[in-house]
């Protein structure tokens, strides 16, 4: 069985009856390995469509998940269950529960090592667990991921608060944190990426920091990286070297790396000077950056141009252009069952007649070939393209943007496969979407690329390939 991987969370969605006889063929070690190769932070088995399960069946999955957890530190567990299934799982494992439980997939995403932060518009998260230590653990982990947890102190208080579910971003209950991943928690707020670090920082930071994710983010155009270091007690020279290297490798992209909330009571001041010399910036509070528009613009967190990334198109990339176009056109046709036609192509900066009523998405790729694909959709075409994935028409921009991210991900997956046929190996970054196309134009300002205008049922949409 193949796992569905979205936002670095792999989910196996099994159906039907799960026991000691059926489980071994439903999920195999090969399935798990194939999913792990997709660079995931979390691996879950969804119980949503499982009508029957017993401990023998579940144990087979849990053993497989544990082996993943041990080898890679990936968060593993079960998700999407109702009250009855939760009670059964509790009964089976009682005090030996050593994997995570997330009542819904949405709750699981809140505990992923990398997540999209909704910024100031987000609501609080209501948290409840019978066990006070789990309650605290849930709240701490949520807080570390930039959320605002509100912890109910009794079942009665929880029941009362839960009646007003609309007031909360999510209600976290019947959720248990087993072994969490060792990766540094990452969240994206607008155009800034925030990494949460704590405790004593030493050589281990190189292992727990996801360098691939960081590199992907640079490739896709992020230039502001903030280390939330309020909980850092101290650091040694190995951690200093790590930060210094990160700053120098980001310089090519014009990246700014900031450390926020770090006190130097137990850390030599000379370390701070060294890091400042390497280009790192220190701030006392997160709001000194995120709420200061001028500062945010200066640091590149408002979606502005990436001064350091003006690499020219190269011949290899241009040679592969037909494959990119073909992947885009085929995907459009697959998703809509309608014909898409190429209109014209030109080399230059991205040029749009209007940015009104348009949405955009982008995805980077790197490896033997690197660059970025950008698609600009008229709103109506974006909606139509999303119908297959959503199963219905929608005017909800957030839903459309989420689905456009999927869409560009599918295109990139197809490009990856087409390039692999030519023995060109590439990896793809997480997709990025733009509700405001002006933000996209600012991001790719002065970058040259190939622009292809395509026609889809009488309306035009734009494909842009750049580096």
């Amino acid at each position, binding site marked *: *069985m*193949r796992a*569905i*991987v*979205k936002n670095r969370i792999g*989910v196996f*969605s*099994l*159906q*039907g*009856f*799960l026991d000691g*006889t*059926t489980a*071994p*063929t*439903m999920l195999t070690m090969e399935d798990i390995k194939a999913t792990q190769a997709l660079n995931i932070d979390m691996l879950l088995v969804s119980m*949503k*469509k499982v*009508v*029957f399960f017993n401990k023998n069946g579940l144990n087979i999955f849990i053993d497989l998940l544990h082996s993943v957890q041990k080898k890679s530190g990936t968060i593993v567990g079960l998700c999407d269950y109702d009250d009855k299934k939760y009670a059964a799982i509790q009964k089976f494992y009682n005090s030996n529960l050593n994997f995570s439980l997330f009542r819904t997939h949405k709750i699981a995403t809140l505990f992923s090592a990398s997540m999209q932060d909704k910024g100031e518009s987000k609501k609080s998260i209501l948290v409840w667990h019978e066990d006070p230590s789990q309650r605290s653990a849930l709240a701490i982990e949520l807080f570390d991921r930039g959320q605002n947890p509100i912890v109910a102190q009794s079942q009665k208080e929880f029941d009362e608060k839960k009646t007003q579910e609309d007031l909360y971003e999510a209600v976290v209950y019947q959720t248990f944190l087993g072994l969490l991943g060792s990766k540094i928690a990452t969240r994206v707020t607008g155009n800034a990426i925030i990494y949460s670090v704590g405790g004593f920082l030493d050589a281990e930071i190189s292992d727990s920091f996801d360098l691939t994710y960081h590199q992907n983010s640079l490739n896709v155009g992020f230039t502001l990286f903030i280390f939330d270091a309020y909980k850092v007690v101290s650091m040694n020279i190995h951690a200093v070297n790590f930060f210094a290297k990160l700053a120098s490798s980001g310089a090519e992209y014009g990246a700014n790396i900031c450390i926020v909330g770090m006190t130097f009571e137990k850390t030599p001041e000379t370390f701070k000077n060294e890091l400042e010399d390497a280009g790192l910036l220190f701030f006392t509070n997160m709001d000194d950056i995120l709420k200061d528009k001028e500062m945010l613009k200066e640091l590149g967190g408002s979606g502005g141009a990436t001064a350091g990334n003006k690499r020219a198109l190269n011949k290899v990339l241009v040679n592969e252009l037909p494959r990119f176009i073909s992947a885009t056109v*085929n*995907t459009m*046709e*697959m998703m809509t*069952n309608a014909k898409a036609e190429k209109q014209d192509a030109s080399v230059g900066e991205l040029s749009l007649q209007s940015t009104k009523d348009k949405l955009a998405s982008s995805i980077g790729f790197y490896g033997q070939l690197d660059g970025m694909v950008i698609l600009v959709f008229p709103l109506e075409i974006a909606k139509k393209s999303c*119908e*297959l*994935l959503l*199963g219905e028409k929608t005017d909800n921009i957030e839903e459309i943007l989420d689905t456009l991210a*999927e869409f560009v*991900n*599918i295109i990139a*997956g*197809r490009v990856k*496969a087409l390039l692999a046929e030519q023995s060109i190996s590439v990896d793809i970054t997480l997709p990025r979407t733009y509700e405001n196309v002006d933000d996209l134009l600012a991001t790719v300002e002065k970058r040259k690329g190939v622009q292809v205008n395509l026609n889809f049922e009488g309306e035009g949409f734009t494909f842009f390939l750049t580096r």
Partner: protein
Amino acid sequence: MITQEEIHEYINSIPPSPKILKEVLSHLNTGELSKAAHSAAEDPALKLYLQNIVNKPIYSFKNDVKDINQIFGILGLTQAKQIIYNYMISLLTPKKWELFDLNDKSFSEIQDNLSVQWKKVLEHKNIRDNDIFTSISLLPASIIVCEALFKSKQDNVNLLRASNDLDYNTILQRLSGMDLYDLCYEIAKAWELPDITSAIVLASKGDKENVNEEIQTLSKWMHLLFFYQLSQPIATSAGLNDFIEFNIEYVQDIYEEFQNLIMEES
């Protein structure tokens, strides 16, 4: 990816039911077992199929039987009819399975398991209607249709399914407005199967509310039985566990009864 034209092309490609099978069924409908056996003997492939079937352990017949008259006699009217329908459906199977890891033997095993368990369900419900009895035979046609429509689109489907919880049936329905159950219905129409046969299969997708109570109840049993089979190793290793969506809410009220009847005994 899959257009209305392709669907119509597929429907038009469904072959008419062979003359001999029509004759066999016609005799079975009038209760003439020996005439049915006589007609069946004219088709060597059907004869061989029946010989293989009755000697499978799942049918629990004690003696090794070869004679076609004896086979019909052992099976009786109802079961003979159901096995003839299973044979008809098997005529639609591809020479080589590409989308699912199946072969004639494993597909036939899925058909047999469904048939035997459906019989158990109907006996439990005290239902003796032959047409209801044979309705289960149409259900595995959904697997054959899925294979036929998607085998050349595997790359596209894999890309779509890599990050979205979409089964083949949903993809087909969203793209063409028709799903695998609707196409089973088209097969039933082309082969002039009884209305109730296709009605139960159509209702077993789990979204029909305007059907009579009996059909709805039977469709729930059929839906759950199908997913019981799709959870078994032979189906999961063929990649069938998630080819179609299991509607867990639809079967909630019969689940315990199903568990007592089917799972306790197996």
